[in-house]
């Protein structure tokens, strides 16, 4: 048991080290010449108002440019709600409406 714990600790430390090395290499947050500030975000910022007629830029991306993703997000919510219902209801009403 002790040795297993030590091994787990070693693995966790190694993984943390690896992740930290990689994170240190990421472009610094908020710099203007980051790769994320490319033509994609430029068009969102400059043309969203004209192309979608929406003041809230987040809404224009969520519900227009990437509306397909948001459709699946609402479906995720739907699935989650129904999954909770099917899991928990089974304990109360055994064999409802047979």
């Amino acid at each position, binding site marked *: 048991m002790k040795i297993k714990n030590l091994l787990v600790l070693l693995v966790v430390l190694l993984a943390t080290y690896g992740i930290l090395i990689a994170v240190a290499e990421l472009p610094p947050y908020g710099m203007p010449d980051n790769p994320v500030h490319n033509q994609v975000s430029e068009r969102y910022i400059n043309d969203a*108002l004209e*192309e*979608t*007629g*929406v*003041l*809230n830029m*987040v*809404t*224009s991306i*969520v*519900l*227009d440019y990437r*509306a*397909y993703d*948001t*459709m699946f997000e*609402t*479906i995720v*919510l*739907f699935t*989650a*709600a*129904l999954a*909770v*219902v099917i899991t*928990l*209801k089974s*304990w*109360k009403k055994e064999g409802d409406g047979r």
Partner: protein
Amino acid sequence: MKDFILKRVVVIILPFLCVYGFYVILHGHVSPGGSFAGGIILGLSIIAYSTIFGIEKGKAKIPEKVLVWTESYGTLWYGLMGMVGIVKGFPFLANKLAGIDVGVPGALSSGGLISLIGIGVGIRVASTMVTLFFTMMEEEP
């Protein structure tokens, strides 16, 4: 719960919570917030009511059937709005491209399909919150 103060306070703030929830949903495209946030506020108003007055009273106000229907058709509404694009001969979920008037930015009627989709999403998020709450609370012995 039988606390008098809580009940009075909830009765007073509940209408404001509801109106605020609808406000955030309807103004998702002109102000910060949006349909997800607004839907949660709307759902929370019902959750607050049923926490204070008891689950049974909350269920009497919002029957399970209503929840099932709003959940289903709120999500379907999204898809139907997407089909508008296809019917007009454009890709799925097209908005301005499909010739829908996006209006004056900043007005409540702006955004074309975005505002309509937002209403559906808001109502369905609210009903999901309430469904989750009711189902999980029923579990308590």
